[in-house]
């Protein structure tokens, strides 16, 4: 860039000054730690005694490829991601479309739907543990009453149905966590809502003239118009879902029988319980590569289905 005037030179200086906090953090912490992490992934080390460092080369990566637990953790994480993200998008879009209707009290509904997305953390995880309790929890209590009702209506067999054990059952633990994730779909909903409010009315009016039905309008007007929001939510959802940790750590600790052994939980155990820093670093880099590959894939596919104004 050419900086002819003193004002431009001053602006350049102030630019660096204002960006300094992030530049320092990025250079001093992010880049340094990334390099260090890459180096750690190539050694064996317990993280305590420097004398115990041994060169590993690609051993840690090779070990990850043959590690049955890594395969389980990857499968679990991918399963969670590929089910919870599309469900969350569909649910979030449905909620946004509901809120886009001219209803009274729409602000209150929006507040209620959005709240669990930001107000959460350990406190709500504790609540969900109790909700999922097979004997004394909310879910089974509701199901129990529902089945009782069915039996009272004459469907006798319903009274004998067994209730799922939710997070305490190998088969139900993962669906439980997915169900819980839907409760926090408010962020995606808000972004969809912004997109829906920006679809020009003229497009719907034009399709009315063409005699388009509800489905056709949704498919050929709404979906293309909100595709950038869909794209954004998809990318953020996938990146986030591959880093699930706290729920699995507190609710199931990876169980029962590794049914909720998520990738980051396994990584955490390797790093901070087993002190295999080299192996854990290799696992972190594999995760980074997977996320990069998935993001690249979504970006490539986006060229086919994301519609940008003015193209």
């Amino acid at each position, binding site marked *: *860039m050419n900086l002819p005037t003193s004002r431009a030179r001053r602006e*350049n*200086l102030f*630019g660096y*000054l*204002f*960006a300094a*906090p*992030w530049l320092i*953090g*990025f250079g*001093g*912490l*992010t880049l*340094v*730690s*990334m390099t*260090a*992490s890459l180096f*750690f992934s190539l050694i064996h080390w317990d*993280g305590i005694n420097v004398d115990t460092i041994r060169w590993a080369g690609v051993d840690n990566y090779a070990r990850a490829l043959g590690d049955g637990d890594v395969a389980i953790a990857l499968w679990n994480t991918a399963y969670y991601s590929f089910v919870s993200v599309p469900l969350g998008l569909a649910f979030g879009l449905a*909620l946004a479309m*509901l809120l886009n209707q001219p*209803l009274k009290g729409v602000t209150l*509904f929006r*507040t209620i*739907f*959005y*709240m669990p997305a*930001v*107000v*959460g953390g*350990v*406190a*709500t995880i*504790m*609540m*969900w543990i*109790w909700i999922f309790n097979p004997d*004394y929890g*909310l879910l089974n*209590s509701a199901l129990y009453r529902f089945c009782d009702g069915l039996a009272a209506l004459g469907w006798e067999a319903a009274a004998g149905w067994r209730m799922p054990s939710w997070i305490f059952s190998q088969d139900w633990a993962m669906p439980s966590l997915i169900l819980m994730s839907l409760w926090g779909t408010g962020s995606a909903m*808000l972004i969809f*809502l*912004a*997109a829906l409010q920006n679809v020009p009315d003229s497009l719907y009016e034009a399709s009315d003239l063409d005699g388009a039905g509800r489905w056709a309008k949704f498919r050929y007007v709404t979906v293309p118009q909100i595709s950038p*929001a869909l794209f*954004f939510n998809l990318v953020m959802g996938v*990146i986030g879902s*591959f880093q699930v940790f*706290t729920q699995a750590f*507190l609710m199931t600790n990876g169980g029962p029988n590794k049914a909720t052994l998520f990738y980051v939980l396994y*990584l955490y155990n390797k*790093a901070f319980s087993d002190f295999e820093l080299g192996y854990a670093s290799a696992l*972190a*880099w594999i*995760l*980074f590569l997977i*996320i990069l590959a998935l*993001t690249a894939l979504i970006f490539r596919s986006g060229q086919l289905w994301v519609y940008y104004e003015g193209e």
Partner: protein
Amino acid sequence: MIDHRVQRLLLRIGLYVVALGLSVVFLFPLVWAVGASLKPLLEVYRYPPSLLFWPLRWDNYTEAIAKLPFLRFITNTLMISTAATLGQVLSASMVGYAFARLRWRGRNFWFVCLLATMMLPGQVLLIPNYLIFKNLGWVNTYKPLIVPAWLGGGAFFIFLFRQFFRGVPADLTDAAHIDGASEIRIYASIILPLARPVMITVGVLSFMGNWQEFMMPLIYLSDYQLYPISMGLRMYQQVEGGSYVHYLMAASVVALCPLVLLFFFAQRHITQSLLLTGSKG
């Protein structure tokens, strides 16, 4: 004609029923937890469970607070969250300003780097960061939870500020430039006062995020006197084989209260800022 109107009325009623039903679904976990926090332990473990129990056992709350150093946990959380939030709001607004309004060499390159960090999972940095902070003697202090917050506050918040600052008309700052005002004065006395809605949004979201943070305290804090509430709740969960459910629920409800209140006061600003940013892409 009448048919058409009846149809539309029915549709509206249907929409209200769906919206109300969903509201109940979204609120019920909280209601259920409040209910459990007001039952005696025997009632909590009754089958089939009841939603509420009479009379309400308010003693659960006083007893829960007395069982573990609950007030200490809350004070710790307040200290950490306040310090980290201040850092995130201040540094993210500065960096966002640099990316939105100032022309400096390499700005576009650094902006791409900033966006790329969104894809970088924190786990890649976790172990080296831990070793760096350990060697600085920061383990069992709040520094690992606070200092990084002052270094830009994360790509998302920087992006939020940048989007907002780009929308501020150039005339406002041009006039100040002609009067010879420095960039720092323009930022502090023109830009920041305008940015109140975004400051509130980032401030509240950041405060809630810091309040709820679990993995960082789990890794860096081992002395329970230093625990924030997220780790404190885990102590309630673990104490005496989990026989503290009613206390755990009471503590969780108290831990959530400030967040729910904060959310209801700030939600108008938050949703509007996010709707605005979202619509600009």
